[in-house]
């Protein structure tokens, strides 16, 4: 008999038994290597903000997720990553998909989530409504998966900061009109603040809190 003490809290109480798996979309074809590949893309997006990164082979998730959004969710979420989802995305199919493939707890209050999944950016909560981290632990801030109708064609901002050689232009479409003003506040309280992955189709753009957006 092997008993390891100091075990983790069992957080798997919602077993797959309670999930309606009819119509469940498949997850990653090769979980070990697909998630590694997607993670590297996400890492490169976060390390080189404003630069669109393609996620070839991103899976078709349930409506309304774009493949890049589904890939990011499957790559990053698990039991230890509480997720908040916006009302459009919050369908039984999507809940079942995330529960089954990631097992992440879905929380009601955006402030308590490690990740936020937003598919209707126009009606998204203000950035300050997500966890901002604390002075001593700025890492305890939320990451947002923000799915937009397009990564181009919206009002353009000029990005600068770590990861950007000189400056980069970024013009995602479909954001609420307060967004870039909120972003200024977000970047202004660095090292606190949220970090964002903008997703659309099979592409992702990273925007960490360290980046200034002028526009």
């Amino acid at each position, binding site marked *: 008999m092997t008993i390891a003490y100091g075990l983790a809290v069992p957080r798997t109480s919602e077993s797959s038994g309670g999930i309606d798996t009819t119509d469940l979309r498949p997850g990653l074809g090769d979980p*070990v290597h697909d998630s590694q590949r997607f*993670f590297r893309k996400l*890492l490169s997006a976060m*390390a080189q903000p404003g630069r669109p990164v393609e996620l070839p082979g991103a899976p078709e998730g349930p409506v309304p997720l774009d493949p890049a959004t589904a890939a990011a969710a499957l790559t990053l979420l698990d039991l230890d990553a509480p997720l908040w989802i916006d009302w459009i995305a919050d369908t039984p199919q999507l809940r079942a998909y995330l529960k089954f493939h990631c097992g992440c707890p879905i929380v009601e209050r955006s402030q308590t989530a*490690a990740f936020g999944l937003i598919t209707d950016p126009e009606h998204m909560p203000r950035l300050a409504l997500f966890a901002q981290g604390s002075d001593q*632990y700025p890492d305890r801030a939320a*990451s947002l998966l923000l799915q937009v109708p397009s990564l181009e064609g919206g009002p353009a901002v000029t990005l600068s900061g770590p990861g950007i*050689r000189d400056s980069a232009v970024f013009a995602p479409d479909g954001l609420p009109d307060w967004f870039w003003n909120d972003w200024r506040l977000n970047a202004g309280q660095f*090292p606190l603040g949220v970090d964002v992955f903008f997703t659309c189709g099979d592409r992702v753009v990273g925007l960490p809190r360290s980046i200034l957006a002028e526009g």
Partner: protein
Amino acid sequence: MTRAAPQSESVVEAGYNFAYLDEQTKRMIRRCILKAVAVPGYQVPFGGREMPLPYGWGTGGMQVTASIIGRADTLKVIDQGADDTTNAVNIRRFFARTAEVPTTEATAEASIVQTRHRVPEDPLAEGQIIVYQVPQPEPLRALEPREVECRKMHAYKEYGLMQVSLYEDIARFGEIATSYSYPVMVNDRYLMSPTPIPKFDNPKMDDCPALQLFGAGREKRIYAVPPYTRVKSLDFDDHPFAIQQWEEDCALCGAEETFLDEVILDDKGGKMYVCSDSHFCERRRAEGHRGRLSEGAAKAYAAAVGADVEEA
């Protein structure tokens, strides 16, 4: 130059996961890496795992590498700048066994470089990742042993203690008496330990096109410097930061601006200097560069340390 992973030693089939760590641990570390990139220079605490190598051998760097590495990668591992030191060999072998990735000694061919104590002489390029092994991530630790206090200093950007300590050096010795682990400010916000690299390598961190990741296993911290980020070595207007310089050149390849190892030749003070970056030196010799050491002596030395010397 790139070597395929030896199939015979692979343990991927033997029940261990790809790159040793389980997927949940990798995800935890990956989330920490993303936060580390978002807050350059800030040390993210992570649930470090016990690795099958001892703490101090590079378990932090190995966990970072294990969490990012994939089949498409080519790995270079160096220790003291050299690919062939026992610890570098051992870590390279670990990833060849657990992740079956090709390995290389050529800096330019590597997509991931894991290092202890050096930054390669060849400039790193966009898209590459360098993973530093970190014995002590806290730059303030020598001045303040308490984690609780150091954390407050970082939170409020109170780095006066470090400035005072450096200034005391100048008052006492006429210069800053720190030759490695020379503290840096990242993006003008966080004081960061560059790890025990010689201060000679500090400038390579500044505005570097590659992503720099740092893993401290025993202390359970991960931090990062994104590409093109300002990394400034602390100094004073009247005592600007300066790197080490040698009066000699590399005895093997004649390089004038590399970090040199001192090699003791006898017990009468005889010595020579050779590049610490073994691959860089080898490549230069292959290109026909020669140092002051006679052909025969260079060969004898190279044979003694097992380095390849191309026939001229």
